[in-house]
């Protein structure tokens, strides 16, 4: 099999994921796109490992590790998104602009105790 097939597929999938990361508004969809990018890299790793017939199978081992790390990442990432959602009532990436120039601190976020009450109010 030509190496070009998996390589091109991986490149295309990576760029698709890239587009998703840059264009999606919902944080969870962004995380999905990140998963796509990770998978594209995994595909590359496997393809090159198979091609090179590496004695240690470093590519496959790294793929496994990447998968495990991706699992951890998605867990933490979702937890963070959930917390942001609880505090802010939204998980839209482009509405989290605390670092913007001239941004006033979020009035609700200013108090340390009222954060949890917000989702109930929104509901």
């Amino acid at each position: 099999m030509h190496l070009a097939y998996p390589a091109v597929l991986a490149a295309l999938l990576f760029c698709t994921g890239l587009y998703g990361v840059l264009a999606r508004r919902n944080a969870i969809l962004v995380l999905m796109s990140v998963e796509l990018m990770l998978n594209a890299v995994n595909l590359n790793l496997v393809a090159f490992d198979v091609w090179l017939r590496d004695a240690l199978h470093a590519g496959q081992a790294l793929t496994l590790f990447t998968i495990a790390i991706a699992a951890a990442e998605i867990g933490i990432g979702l937890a963070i998104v959930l917390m942001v959602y609880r505090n802010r009532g939204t998980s839209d990436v482009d509405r989290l602009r605390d670092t913007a120039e001239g941004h006033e601190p979020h009035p609700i976020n200013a108090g340390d105790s009222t954060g949890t009450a917000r989702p109930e109010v929104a509901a």
Partner: protein
Amino acid sequence: MTPAATLAAAATTGPGFLSPTGVEIAFLLVGLATFGAALVTVTTKQLVHAALWLVVALGGIAVEYLLLTAEFIAWVQVLIYLGSVVVLLLFGLMLTKAPIGRSPDADSGNRRVALGVAVVAAVALVWVVVDAFRTTWIDLDGPVQGSTKVSGEMLFQHWVLPFEALSVLLLAALIGAIVLSRRNDPADASDKGQR
């Protein structure tokens, strides 16, 4: 160099693109399906549908692993990605009260820039990759490379230490996720408020 000479040079390492093998045809078809599913994932207006199309894309990738003889990884992919990650994502969508049905604002205002960057990156990557690997041939017929046995030997002979380190990382991530997503007790919060 004439096209014929290029073909001749390619023939030294493997067959040309004009006479694909069966595996190649299967890879190509599954690859197209995967790519299409991925495209739908990042463009659909329905959030839950995006997660479901992601399943298709990840499953396609698992098939590609199989076609590349990386058997064990394919099953790991199915187990972890399809089995847990997507489920987690669906839970996440649910918990953040993602709207069911078409949501017109699924894409941010950054879409045009994102499209430009992605297309340019894709063109550049594909160009470079094709330029570099157009004559490289993977010989899939040798000794099996990705079976469970091979992967197990490889992992527990050469990669034991990283593997164990990874388990610690996973534990840390587990605890971190629990701590982060634990909802503070309202009574506790009011205590803090009074203090």
